[in-house]
C-alpha cells in the first residue's frame, strides 16, 4: 500500500502525458479534420456535423473520451505549469525556450477552450456553418482570438508529442530526439495551416 502511495505522483504525471495524446490529441485531429470540411462549402460541413451528431451514445462518448480527459489534462497541466521554474532568460537554449512555450501555449489553450466551448458547444445554438460564420464575422476580435487559439493548441499538441516520446522512452538517443523535433515541427506547421485555412473558409464563405 505504501508503495502505491509513493507512486501516485508518477502515475498522475504519466496519465497526464497519455491523456494529452490518446483521447485529447486524437480529438484535436478529428476536430481539425471536420472543420476543414468547411473549405468545401457549407453543405459539406453541415453534413459532417450531421454524421457526428448521429453517432450512437454520443453524449457518453463525448463525456468519457473528450470531456473527462480534457479536464484532467487541462487542470493537472495548470499544476505542472505552476510548479515548473522558468529560467529561459538565463539559459536561452532552444529546448529550454520550447519548455517555456509548451507551458505558455498550454495555459493559452486552456483559456481558449473554455471560451470556445462557452460560445459554441454550450451556447444553446445549433452547431451549423452559419453559427460559426456569424460568430467570426460579427466580431473581428473573435476571429483573431480563434487564430491564436488554433496556433497555440496545435503547437502544444505537436511539441507535446515530442515530449511524450521522451517521457515514454520511445525516442532515447540524441539523434532520435533531434529528428523527432523536426518532424513534430512540420506536424505543427501543417496542423496550424489546416486550422487557419478552415477559419478563413468559415469567415469568407456564406451559407
Amino acid at each position, binding site marked *: 500500500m505504501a*508503495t502505491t502511495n*509513493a*507512486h501516485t*505522483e*508518477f502515475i498522475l*504525471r*504519466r496519465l497526464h502525458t497519455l491523456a494529452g495524446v490518446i483521447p485529447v490529441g486524437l480529438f484535436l485531429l478529428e476536430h481539425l479534420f471536420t472543420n476543414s470540411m468547411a473549405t468545401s462549402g457549407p453543405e459539406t460541413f453541415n453534413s459532417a456535423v450531421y454524421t457526428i451528431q448521429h453517432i450512437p451514445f454520443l453524449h457518453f462518448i463525448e463525456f468519457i473520451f473528450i470531456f473527462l480527459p480534457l479536464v484532467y489534462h487541462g487542470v493537472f497541466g495548470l499544476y*505542472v505549469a*505552476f*510548479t*515548473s*521554474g*522558468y*529560467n*529561459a532568460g*538565463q*539559459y536561452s*537554449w532552444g*529546448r*529550454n525556450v520550447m*519548455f517555456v512555450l509548451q507551458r505558455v501555449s498550454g495555459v493559452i489553450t486552456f483559456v481558449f477552450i473554455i471560451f470556445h466551448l462557452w460560445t459554441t458547444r454550450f451556447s444553446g445554438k445549433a452547431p451549423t456553418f452559419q453559427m460559426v460564420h456569424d460568430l467570426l464575422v460579427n466580431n473581428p476580435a473573435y476571429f483573431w482570438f480563434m487564430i491564436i487559439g488554433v496556433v497555440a493548441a496545435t503547437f502544444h499538441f505537436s511539441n507535446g508529442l*515530442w*515530449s511524450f516520446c*521522451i*517521457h*515514454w*522512452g*520511445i*525516442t*532515447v*538517443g*540524441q539523434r532520435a*530526439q533531434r529528428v523527432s523535433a523536426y518532424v513534430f515541427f512540420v506536424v505543427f506547421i501543417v496542423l496550424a495551416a489546416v486550422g487557419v485555412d478552415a477559419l478563413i473558409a468559415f469567415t469568407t464563405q456564406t451559407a
Partner: protein
Amino acid sequence: MSGSATAERQTAATTKTVHLIIERQDGPDSPSYTEEFEVPYQPGMNVIACLMEIQRNPVNKAGKRVAPVTWEMNCLEEICGACSMVINGKPRQACTALVDKLEQPIRLKPMRTFPVVRDLVVDRSRMFEALKKVKAWIPIDGTYDLGPGPRMNERDRQWAYELSRCFTCGCCVEACPNVNERTSFMGAFAISQARLFNAHPTGAMHRADRLEALMEEGGIHECGNAQNCVQVCPKGIPLTTSIAAMNRQVTYHAIGAWLKK
C-alpha cells in the same frame, strides 16, 4: 605635477587588472549583497587564482577592507566538482574558468538551487541523498568471497564509462527549471547514475529497487525535458539520453509490475 600624473597613467595601463562582481552572503540566513573587487592580472589565471588574490588582500574595489570571500575547492582539475559556482550566468567549475576566456566584469554567484552556507559555498548534500535513494552503487559486500563478477561487454562499457565521469558537481541541478522550491525533483545526475549501475552486470541486481526509487516523489516523472542539464554538464555526459533510457526502463517496469500483481 603633470609628469607624475603621466607616469601614473602609464602604470595603470601596463598593470592589467581583473574586475570581479561577487554575490556574497555572510551566513545561511543572512541577506545577500554584491561586492566588487579588482585584482592584478596574471597570464593564464583562473577564477580560483582571482579568489586567492582576494584572500591575500581582502580589499574591495572601493578600497575598503572586507572579510575575504569564501569558496570551496579541492582537485583544481575539474574532477571533484567542489568549486562549482555560477560564473557569468552559467554554472561551471571555477578551476577551469580561465580569465582570458571570460567576459569582464566576471560575475560570480553561488549555486542557489542549494542552500548557501557562506559566499560561494553551498551545501550539496541533497545530491548525496538522491544517490542513496537510487542506490548508486554496486552491491559486493558480504561475509564471504563472492568470486569474480560477470564481465561486461565492450560496447556497453564504452557508454557506461561516459556516465561514470559524473562527479556530482551540481551544474545540472542548478540549471534545471524543474528543480525549485515548489518541486522535489532529484535532478538529471541521479537518473543517469541509476542507468549506469543498472547497466552493470552486478549492479543490475538492484535494478528493480532503482526503478522503484525513480518512480517515487521527486523522481523521473518530474523532468520536463528542458534539457539544460546536458548543455551545462562539464563532462559532456549524455544526460538527456540517460533520462529517456530510464523513462523506457521505468515504463516497462511500471506496466510489467502492475500486470503481474
